[in-house]
């Protein structure tokens, strides 16, 4: 059992680090459905897996400056505020409707991402708009697949902040990570290259998860003998995943991401319908 959990965690870490998602979408159903782990401990292990994905990936991404720290910090203001607000509201709104809403938002993001055609990251608009200029958000990263430094501008900062606030509210309400909403917001609204969106989302979800993990640990939801093999597997997976991602072509990453969005949307819709697979 432990070895199977370890292997699944490697896969979760690899996907998570490539796509900028936490491992929760994979880890929680795997632990509860395949291994009959009580949901409480599965969620505890999953929150650790999100942090492991983030930290494991970050060591590579930051060194190659794919992660945009300024954007991450700026948007994190909106997400944390949204998450706090969402957590306070969560008692008031029945979660069933929220899961439907979340599924719709995810499908909508997938459609938008699918319709935004990008031939090459190198052809992205270089010009930032006034907010982004003022906040010095434009940057560049070395693209191993294109073998060149890709310079990028940043657009629609207020819209991006608004979407992040919404993502934060949803994650606070539902108690789930929101990498699936962060990446489309950065990709579609702010016109960031997908690799930058993914790496920056990864950084952000790790930070948010770490803040929650303290509470989980104190409550006793994080069982070391379960969370340790998960964390170790995810760290290895993230180490492999980051290296893969740097070499992958952006279009492939976007397609993979869109596919995963649809899967998560279906998962959420099933949840709303009362089928518990988390």
């Amino acid at each position, binding site marked *: *059992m*432990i070895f199977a959990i370890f292997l699944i965690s490697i896969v979760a870490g690899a996907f998570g680090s490539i796509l900028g998602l936490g491992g929760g979408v994979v880890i929680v159903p795997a632990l509860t459905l395949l*291994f*009959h*782990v*009580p949901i409480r*401990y599965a969620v505890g292990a999953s929150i*650790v897996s999100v*942090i*492991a994905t983030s*930290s*494991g990936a*970050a*060591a590579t991404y*930051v*060194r190659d*400056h794919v992660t945009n*720290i*300024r954007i991450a*910090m*700026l948007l*994190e*203001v909106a997400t*944390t*505020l949204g*998450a*706090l607000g969402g*957590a306070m509201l969560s008692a008031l709104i029945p979660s069933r409707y929220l899961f439907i809403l979340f599924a719709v938002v995810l499908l909508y993001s997938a459609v938008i991402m699918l319709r935004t055609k990008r031939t090459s990251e190198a052809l992205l608009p270089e010009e930032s708009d006034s907010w982004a200029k003022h*906040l010095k958000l434009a*940057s560049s990263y070395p693209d191993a697949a294109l073998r060149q430094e890709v310079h990028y501008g940043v657009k629609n900062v207020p819209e991006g902040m608004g979407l992040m606030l919404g993502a934060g509210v949803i*994650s*606070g309400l539902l*108690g789930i990570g929101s990498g699936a909403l962060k990446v489309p917001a950065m990709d579609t609204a702010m016109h960031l290259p997908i690799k930058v969106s993914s790496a920056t989302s990864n*950084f952000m979800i*790790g*930070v*948010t*998860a*770490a*803040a*929650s*993990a*303290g*509470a*989980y*640990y*104190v*409550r*006793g939801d*994080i*069982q*070391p*003998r*379960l*969370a*340790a*093999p998960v*964390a*170790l597997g995810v*760290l290895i997976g993230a180490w492999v995943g980051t290296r893969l991602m740097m070499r992958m072509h952006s279009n492939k990453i976007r397609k993979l991401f869109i596919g995963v969005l649809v899967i998560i949307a279906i998962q959420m819709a099933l949840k709303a319908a009362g089928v518990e697979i988390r």
Partner: protein
Amino acid sequence: MRNTNPERDLIRAETLISYMLRYGVILSASLLLLGLLFIALFSSQGARNFQLSAILHPAPPYTPSELYAGLRRGDPDTWLAAGLLLLIGLPILRVGLTMVLFLLEQDKTYFLITLFVFVILLSGIFLGKAL
């Protein structure tokens, strides 16, 4: 540090943070690996320690003093807990260091932004409220 290109300086300092992060991750992974191997190979139940009933059985050490005592005893379950706690602490440490970095860069806007995030994170931890 304060020369012609502040963007380069920021990247250099970020590289430093990234190396700290990397060593933190390696240390955490080593603690987890050692703990798991010790439990699987040397404890009385061996690999049976990882069956569902056994996984959920041992209460994790919560308090700093329990952790300290466990580490001194060489208890592998405590190594696991220590590795996990280190892993959890790394992103928060990283935000803290980034905040110092912006302060050194005299980048007031981003210092305040990062300070805000840092305070929210810490309050989340101390209030025991999961974000």
